[in-house]
């Protein structure tokens, strides 16, 4: 991708941004490993203005991608304070792509028992409503006001 398509920045910087937001941990890959920069740029363009993003990226040091996680976090926090809508858009795009990725959903399923299949058509069992739970509420006096 050209620098223009990258809002004046580099693939390395964008990868480092993703890595900063969602780092690798155990069998969970980092956002940089699962998100293609193409897809990220496409999503970001719909969420925020390119001009603002260029300004946002200018807040980061040139060697951003070479810094360690905590240094990158503090730089990103600083840029986010100046242009919060850009940090929010970046977060929104990164989370959206990351948490829609089949590999990530598979790991979440393994760890939590959550089913990674779509909600429909199977859904989940609809248990019967247990009216015994209302034992206390049914004892209450009427609690509406008759205006007449």
């Amino acid at each position: 991708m050209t620098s223009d398509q990258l809002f004046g920045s580099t693939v390395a910087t964008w990868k480092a941004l993703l890595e900063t937001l969602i780092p690798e941990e155990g069998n969970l890959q980092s956002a940089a490993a699962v998100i293609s920069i193409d897809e990220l740029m496409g999503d970001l363009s719909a969420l925020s203005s390119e001009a603002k993003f260029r300004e946002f990226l200018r807040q980061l040091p040139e060697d951003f991608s070479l810094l360690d996680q905590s240094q990158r976090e503090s730089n990103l926090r600083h840029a986010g304070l100046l242009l919060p809508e850009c940090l929010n858009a970046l977060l929104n795009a990164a989370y959206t792509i990351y948490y829609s990725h089949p590999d990530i959903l598979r790991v979440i399923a393994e760890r939590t028992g959550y089913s990674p299949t779509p909600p429909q058509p199977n859904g989940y069992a609809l248990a019967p409503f247990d009216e015994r739970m209302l034992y206390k509420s049914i004892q209450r006096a009427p609690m509406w006001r008759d205006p007449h």
Partner: protein
Amino acid sequence: MKSTCEFLVIGAGAAGSAAAWRLAQHGAQVTVLDQGGWVAPDSSPSLTIGWERARHRTHHPNPNIRKNSWDYPIDDSDSDISPMLYNAIGGSTIHWGAHFPRLKPEDFRVKSLDGVGEDWPLSYFDLEPYFEINDQMMGVAGHDGDPAYPRKPHRTMPALPLGRGAERIAAAYDRLNYHWWPVDAAIMTADHGDRLACNNCGPCDLGCPRKSRASTDVTYWSDIHASKIRLVTEARVSRILSTSGRVTGVTYFDAEGNAQEIQAENVVLAGNGVGTARLLLLSAADWCPTGLANSSDQVGRNLMFHPTALVTGIFPEPMDGFMGPFACSIYSQEFYESNTDRGFVRGFQAQTIRSDGPLGSALGTYTLPVAWGAGHHEDFYSQFGHTASITVTSEDLPESHNRVTLSPTLKDRFGIAAPKISYRVSENARKILDFGIEINRGVLKEAGATDIRVVDLVTSAGFHLLGTARMGSDPKTSVVNEFGQSHDCSNLYIVDGGVFVTVGALNPTSTIQAIALRAADSMVGAQILESAR
């Protein structure tokens, strides 16, 4: 040749569908125009792996994010809350949560009882027979005997199961001696015709392929009487035509973008609190230079949204909140009424909501997003599947500066001026929210939450679009009478949530539809039904 009709209804959402159906049932000749088209229930993204992504992009409830061709943009840059709505046959019920409370008897008499707002020109009991017709048409699951209401007809379908989170919250309410009840939900819990019982899948806002969750495209529009209605889809009304004191028809853009005109003996507006106000303002003419039906200068004013805060408890055990209709489980009206010791008037509804899939949990759709950076995964796994939330839905009182106007710059794709929303949360509502947040922190703590997170104003919770064409007996201070009939044009009716005088703190759709049905009876001179009470 321009076509002509007896009743021209603008908007096929919750209100317009109910009104058109009732008019057709009375044998009236009805044409309905909506800027949207049909949304097939089995086209719901909930059948696809990308369902959560769709929820945050193509199927977002905010038209400014979704931007589909049926939508119009809304300038909300001057508003604390962004309006959420959908434009289609079914209107915003295509996206809604189907929590189906009625306003309470006292909500119609706020001025007399609490000295604020205005009284309505009609009462809860005037609407009671129409609530009941509407309940039958929409299909309501619930449990009889809620002490927060006058007795309602027997609910033939059982209430939805609470789910783990709401069970914990209900038990906490019991220990704290607070009211709670399973909600009335416009959701089938038993099969009926082609509407199947809910299978607890979760994201009702993406549409329900089983047609369990009511939306007016699958309720009113599938009834036999609706087959007599002429429906024009993808028809964006640009102007209501009028001569002094009478409306004569409308102009609209059809699906191909061609300008069309249709004449009508009566026009019924059901475009919701934003769309209707926009259209009335767009329809200014020489005899009504500030907008149609606006001699009172109340069109667009008194916009009420129900400001909402969200209190989320994180529990050590799984709560499985991604299961079950997200908006429907239990509610509490313990703090609904005024208590002057609290330093504010009126109160709030506490509605328990379930949670989200992985993406919604990470983004914090209505809650706080998961932290980014080194602690990201830990924060994600502490929250995902482990939360239950309580919304604090605040009373919102009418204030004339909260309003819909026309944007001087923003236009829709046909070049029609977009609406602009100016809205600020009032001091009274802010106090209610703060009080409600503290109460519900206590509830969640009692329920066993080990961490509690608060969104003190959910800016994306502009679901209820109310008050911008209010009803009243005095033409100087209101836009329509109790039957939705314009004070200025006797053959123009408004039947959506714009006519609300005050809004209580409860979700409005059941009340909107009851008002629309009653108004339709009056339009054809039918006998107005009376409460059996």
